[in-house]
């Protein structure tokens, strides 16, 4: 076998991550480098878009182009990037608060447009960067600095959301299984359309014990081992209901017949319409009143 064009280290920048020692995001970053190496696109053809949060720092730790934007807006911004240049490989990285709380309104629309983007959510059920507040995926009853008497809310189920919105690729991973996670990230990137991987990436400082990598190792179950058929959307939804109780890893759903992407339809439209283009200095003539 030939050596890959780009090694994992070719995607690693000189910036030192700000994360706490033992943070799950270190593992996610490592898995990401590996997936990119397996895919082999040169770093300058890759764009990482993120919002705000611990995990949103990821773009700076790669040698690719990065855009560390504002809280909750990575999805629309990434869509602009991809539509402006469909040749790019565009990956979005962020946390559960960024994606499902402040940015929650964008998720359905990013999915339904089916632009070829890969969305990696590092789900740690807590706001880490602001030091341990309640997040949209925090379990009910969780005691945090903003829920000192216990949370009164049910958490969001990111997997079920994505499936219900119609995402063509939905998976879950944990850095506790490095080979499995990097393979899933790679598969998600290769999927021609919007893809989503929920990565259970523990917060070592504010997370609960049972959410740590060590606990993941004992708890995780691959969907393959359950005999799940990842082309079965309904079965995927059924399994996704166990979010927060079970830690299933692998592909919940992968559309066996991916529909055309938004950008491929744009390309067709542009080709068809380009015949009607006016020369630049004749654009205004369309308004002449004869």
């Amino acid at each position, binding site marked *: 076998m030939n050596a890959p064009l780009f090694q994992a280290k070719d995607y690693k920048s000189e910036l030192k991550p700000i994360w706490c020692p033992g943070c799950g995001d270190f593992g996610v970053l490592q898995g990401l480098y590996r997936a990119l190496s397996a895919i082999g696109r040169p770093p300058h053809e890759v764009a990482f878009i993120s919002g705000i949060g611990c995990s949103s720092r990821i773009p700076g730790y790669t040698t690719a182009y990065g855009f560390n*934007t504002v809280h909750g807006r990575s999805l629309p911004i990434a869509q602009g990037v991809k539509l402006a240049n469909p040749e790019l490989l565009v990956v979005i990285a962020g946390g559960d608060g960024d994606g499902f709380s402040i940015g929650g309104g964008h998720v359905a629309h990013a999915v339904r447009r089916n632009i070829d983007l890969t969305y990696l959510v590092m789900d740690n059920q807590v706001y880490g960067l602001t030091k341990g507040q309640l997040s949209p995926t925090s379990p009910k009853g969780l005691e945090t600095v903003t829920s000192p008497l216990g949370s009164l809310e049910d958490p969001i189920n990111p997997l079920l959301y994505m499936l219900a919105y119609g995402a063509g690729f939905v998976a879950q991973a944990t850095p506790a299984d490095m080979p499995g996670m990097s393979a899933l990230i790679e598969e998600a990137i290769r999927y021609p359309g919007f893809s989503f991987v929920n990565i259970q990436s523990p917060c070592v400082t504010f997370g609960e014990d049972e959410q740590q990598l060590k606990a993941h190792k004992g708890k995780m179950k691959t969907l393959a081992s359950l005999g799940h058929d990842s082309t079965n959307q309904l079965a995927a939804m059924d399994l996704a209901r166990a979010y927060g109780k079970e830690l299933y890893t692998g592909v919940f759903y992968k559309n066996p017949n991916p529909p055309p992407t938004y950008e491929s339809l744009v390309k067709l439209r542009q080709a068809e319409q380009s015949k009607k283009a006016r020369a630049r200095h004749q654009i205004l003539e369309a308004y002449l009143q004869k």
Partner: protein
Amino acid sequence: MLDDLILGMAGAGGDGVVSAGESLLSAASSEGYHALMTKSFGSQIRGGESSCRVRLSTKKVLNPGGALDVMVALNWEDFFKFGAELPLSVNTVLIYEEKAGPPPETLAARGVVPKELVPVGITELTKKSAGSDKAKTSVVLGLLSGWFGIPSEAITRGLKKKFGNKGEGLLEANEKALAVGIDYAKAHPLQAPHVIAKPAGTPGSKMLCDGNDMCAAGALFAGVKFFGGYPITPSTEVMQTLTREIWKYGGTVLQCEDEIAGLGATVGASFAGKKSMSATSGPGMDLKTEILGLATIAELPLVLLNVQRGGPSTGLPTKPEQGDLFQAAFSGHGDVLRPVLAPTDVEDTFRTTVECFNIAEQFQTPVILLSDQEIAQRKEAVDLIDTSKMEIIERRVPTEAELAAKPYARFALTESGVSPITHPGLKGGTYLAAGIEHNEKGDPTSSGAMHAKMNAKRFRKLEPLKKRADLFEVQGNPNAALGLIAWGSTAGVAREAVQLAKAEGHDVKLLVPYLLYPIAEQVYANFFESLKHGLIVELSHQGQLYRILRMFTEVPKGVRSFTRDGANPFQPIELVKTLVELKGLPS
């Protein structure tokens, strides 16, 4: 013979007065008249009251004009809903639907009762000629043609265009109604004739367009490749036009899920290297503010159109106001400097839009294009704009060879403040764009020293704008003791006021800034130097430019803020009167 004629029409939503105004405008423009139409409605989707004003002229039309020469009221109740928008004078010919009865006392209470009141059985005439009352406005068009000399052939051409494909019956009915109107006018001459002279221009040489059309056309001309937006009155037409046209030129429009996403996608496309824009109105500006800050600190070019409407909140969605200048200049947290430019009329919206793209790309900054409902939605017949000498500035991107020569620093602290900008896909140019403060390379920093340097750079790079004489219109005797300053749609009123003042023997000079922010201190200082008295004319409660000028310049005591709240347009003559009154006062 007149060389200028201002007509108004008002009726219920279904009466078709706006559509009649459009027919009139289209007829006039195809004949070679300069013309301008503004419309005004309640904010109902259907029904409610609606009105329009059409000004025809043999010369360039500067603004919708003051008191009407002709007013057609299809009923009184709807007419009275438009106060200052449909002003009458003693010389107005007031034509009204006979069955609505004589003008109620409310008319006298408004101050002026025209000398010539002309009741016409418009509904009766329509029923008799067209067989139903659906073609009422064609009778009105006939009356206007017969009494005021607007060529009927052109109106007929317009009717054919409009009804030609809607079944023979409809076109015929309207043609009959038109003929009846013309005959009626001929048989019932007015006391004082108001016939407009023939235009000098060649038929077929005028563009018929509104400000939103010219913004979209300007964007296409400048080479826009991405538009992200969300529908909002009164800017939506820009997105509607672009989403029909942009594909032809290799671009994309994304109608987003909300205002935030609209500007988000736009800043993303700009990061990816494409000329990008978004459009909105006040409420959308509120929501877009955070992304504007991101574009400022990440130094990404984009153009954001704000078609101002009355505010705050939902305010007056269908009426103009110049109340968003503070917002355009100052909204958002942090120390921010971003350019704000305002077009002053429909034609000018084309040029100013192109200018905004040029400034955005040259200085790597978001630029606010601050239009308003009147300019954006008023239709004008104007001469075709000569674009042959217009410059288009493209983003200066380093070549791969330049990038290979030395380590790339996206935010290098250059003397000009402008740093080399790359985009994804370009080899050797990778960097991290971010909302977080950064060092020259682009890596995040929380260093106070670096923050100070980056702020200075972001301010420094826009300094050259203040020296651009072409971003300011200065008219009149530089030593005049009287002066007007006006921006946006108010500029057209001020331009005409200067002409009127001159005709009355008063020496008044005028300053119209296209660049509203940053404030070009020297331009204003020069203008103020000779002034004893002056007015800064704005359609807003506070007079926001006046207040900003007091922050940045020494405004002479004799120069005052002259304001009126949105939806209450100025008339050129009142500016002249106010100036003349001031003239007698000590400065």
